[in-house]
């Protein structure tokens, strides 16, 4: 069976695959937008002077990172809706509950990793910077926002970019709960047309291109904004 490039360029299968790519990109984008602020908050919790908040931060990070994303997805798709009242459940099942569960799982999972990157970025900044900020009259959050975070971001952006790359690859796991993203659509083409080579090549190239773009962005950032130290 020769490789049929045309199948990827026009027709139903082409449409399916493009739809999948769109959905994958969409899920990754939304997850990134939701996970970043969540990660920031969790990182601040983990550094907070209040022991209870620190504990909450640790619990969040450890309980999420030590369970595979696949198990998170199974839980949020099969397990969690059962805990909701019937009316809400019916409303959810009427909508796109697959995408919703996948996004929740991905957001929590990504945020847990990003929180740790942000935290170690912040911890890398000397306590003198913090004291200097407080001495000028900035509040804890003001010092964080204007002095610590801008510096921490410099060192944190590269690891955050590689977390985004992981996020992008992780969207593929949403297949297991039936989200029609790229991997799912590729498998669908495989099973309806027995065209695994074409479908998988398309998906692989899509995954790789986005990954390479992200890797490139990370390298560019490191080159453009080298870490400044006094």
């Amino acid at each position, binding site marked *: 069976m020769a490789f049929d490039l045309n199948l990827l360029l026009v027709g139903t299968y082409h449409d399916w695959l493009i739809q999948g790519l769109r959905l994958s990109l969409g899920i990754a984008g939304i997850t990134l937008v939701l996970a970043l602020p969540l990660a920031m908050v969790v990182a601040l919790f983990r550094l907070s002077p209040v022991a209870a908040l620190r504990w909450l931060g640790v619990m969040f990070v450890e309980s999420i990172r030590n369970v595979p994303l696949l198990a998170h997805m199974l839980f949020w798709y099969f397990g969690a809706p059962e805990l909701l009242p019937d009316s809400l459940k019916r409303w959810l099942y009427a909508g796109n509950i697959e995408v919703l569960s996948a996004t929740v799982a991905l957001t929590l999972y990504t945020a847990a990793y990003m929180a740790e990157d942000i935290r170690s970025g912040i911890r890398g900044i*000397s306590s*003198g*910077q913090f*004291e*200097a*900020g*407080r*001495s*000028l*009259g*900035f*509040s804890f959050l*003001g010092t964080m926002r*204007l*002095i610590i975070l*801008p*510096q921490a971001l*410099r060192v944190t952006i590269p690891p955050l970019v590689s977390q985004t790359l992981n996020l992008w690859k992780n969207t593929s796991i949403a297949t297991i709960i039936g989200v029609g993203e790229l991997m799912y659509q590729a498998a669908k083409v495989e099973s309806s047309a027995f065209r695994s080579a074409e479908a998988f090549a398309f998906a692989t190239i899509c995954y790789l291109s986005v990954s390479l773009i992200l890797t490139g962005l990370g390298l560019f950032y490191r080159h453009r904004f080298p870490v*400044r*130290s*006094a």
Partner: protein
Amino acid sequence: MIQFENVNKWYGEYHALVDITETIGKGEVVVVCGPSGSGKSTLIRTINRLEPIQSGTIVVDGKDAHSASLNINQFRAGIGFVFQQFNLFPHLTALENCTLAPKNIRGLNASAARELAIKLLDRVGLSEKADAYPAALSGGQQQRVAIARALAMQPPVLLFDEPTSALDPEMVGEVLMVMRDLASDGMTMVCVTHEMGFAREVADRVLFMDSGRILERATPDDFFNRPQHARAQQFLSDIRTPFR
């Protein structure tokens, strides 16, 4: 301007400040000296509450520094603090270091903050370095920017914690010059320093500390020529040999 009353501080078991009672007047320049580990940094850091105290009171400009109801950020904005390690913000230029707090805390608009910062950088002799990042400045220049940054909040009090100790010897002079200039302007200053030449010429009073206590308070003339306490005599003879 600054009143300590029966101030005690512990680090865990260690009694770092013992029954400190002292008054520093408006416009006074006080030099705090003493051997390493005697509690000088601890003392000066309790004034703007970088360190909490366990008993006693510290009143700065009529405000109780350690009362729970104090607006701590507003309070600190009125006290300039200069660190041994400069602690300039490395992601900001010299100018931006000086405009950050005026813009965000005093609410100055960008052009007013800029004007003020340029004036202050000029005063410490660094107007041509306004757009340089800290990494591109020498230690002496960084410390002068740090002083300008503190001055930008127009505080009535300036605290210095060994501002010249992290500097190469040839850069000490330029920083002391700026401090001298501030003193002659009538600024209230508390300086932890080992620069005895500065203490002799600029200070109104010298406080000598050892093991968390102020053992001696005297004019520079009395302190250097007629030290009373045995520990102070020892301290002076130790540092006098390579007199600067």
